């Protein structure tokens, strides 16, 4: 069973990303669950969403506390104790950024991936200067980093679920899939 935690800020499309990701896993023949963090939300506040995927049907229904993967849309969230220690042993972290942030304490044995989703969004004109749309790029980057889902399953899911600019969002995912890289610590 794979458990994924996606963290970002309200308005960044974290919940939609979790559903696109779940759809991609579903297309790769997994049973899935996706759900948001519970409670009132508002623009700009930290928000998380979760995905579970498994070969067979999952019956459990509860929160995810030790994700296999953590995906961060906003690297500055790390300063707000997003809880890197939650990552499962030998789990992985994917951040929207260029390099490791100062003060980041990555658990021993964990893998660390980066992708500059902001640059990809700006390059494609996705979203404004201050609010680039990074969620589709991050899902594409996850596919590239984890190899748990195919890029096609991601782009198909984006086609079905993106509310607007489907082509650009697909391109963002494809670019991020290629550009994501592991940073060896």
């Amino acid at each position, binding site marked *: 069973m794979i458990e994924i935690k996606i963290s970002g800020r309200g*308005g960044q499309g974290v919940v939609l990303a979790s559903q696109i990701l779940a759809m991609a896993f579903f297309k790769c023949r997994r049973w899935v669950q996706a759900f948001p963090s519970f409670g*009132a939300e*508002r*623009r*700009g*506040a930290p928000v998380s969403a979760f995905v579970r995927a498994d070969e067979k049907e999952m019956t459990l229904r509860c929160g995810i506390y030790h994700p296999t993967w953590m995906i961060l849309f906003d690297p500055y969230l790390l300063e707000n104790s997003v809880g890197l220690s939650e990552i499962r042993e030998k789990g992985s972290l994917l951040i929207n950024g260029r390099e490791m942030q100062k003060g980041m304490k990555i658990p021993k044995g964990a893998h660390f991936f980066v992708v500059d989703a902001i640059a990809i969004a700006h390059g494609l004109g996705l979203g404004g200067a201050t609010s680039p749309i990074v969620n589709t790029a991050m899902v594409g980057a996850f596919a590239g980093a984890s190899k748990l889902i195919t890029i096609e399953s991601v782009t198909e899911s984006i086609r079905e679920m993106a509310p607007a600019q489907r082509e650009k969002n697909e391109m963002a995912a494809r670019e991020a899939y290629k550009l994501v890289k592991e940073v060896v610590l």
Partner: protein
Amino acid sequence: MVAPGHFACPGCGESIAFRHVLHALGRNTVVVTTAGCGSVVDGYYPTTASRVPFFHCSFGTAATTAAGVKAGLEMQGDRRTHVLAWAGDGGTFDIGFQSLSGAAERNEDILYVCYDNEAYMNTGVQRSSATPKGAWTTTTPKGALEDRPKKNLIAILAAHEIPYIATATVAYLEDLEEKVKRAKKIAGFRFIHILSPCPPGWIFPPEKTIRLARLAVTSRIFPLFEVENGKEYSLSPMDEKVSVREYIQGQGRFRNFTEEEMAMLQRNVDQAWDNLAAKAKPKKRKP
């Protein structure tokens, strides 16, 4: 009166209004608030942003609960503390309407302020009877946009012959505070209607809140005025009149407005403005 760190979205009209209403009322105030942005913005246990006593009541009972608080305080010898009912358009125009009318009709001695962001914003932008015609909300989506005019709550409350009614908005903060101070000195049921632009719900960038509030007034879609005893109307100082287009085009919720609808809106607004101007007479204000 309101501590920083509360939960309002960037550009929230309600939080600006609340701060200024409390500033004008002063520390000797008790706030009663219902479900809605105002309740959530104050924060979650164990923190609160309000520096005056603050009570959360059920969705439809703001006016009555506030009246109950006032009655209780008076029976304990406190006739000085101001009781403020702070509710959104949902809790005032819709589910709270019975409670509002009852308290107004009995002339309960409270100040009721409705922060109107023109939909159920706290639960994710569903329409209320304060939602203007042509607006998008999640329950008036494309293909079924809001097709009823905004409920004329001021006319309804004027018919209750309450001592004081005023409209205000966050682009004219001195005017807003003056009205609160004026209301403070009057006994009986007082009502202030504050238009509170909402960036996520009206769909505009958060830095444009004040500008939009000003346009609501200058377009005369939301004119500023007062009504005393249900009969004496007086206009507040407002900037020069502009076309409704300037207000409408800045908001994504009106994205589907046709030229025909724009023309009709302009006609209706002009008509309503003429009616209001005719009712109002210039007032000599005591300082």
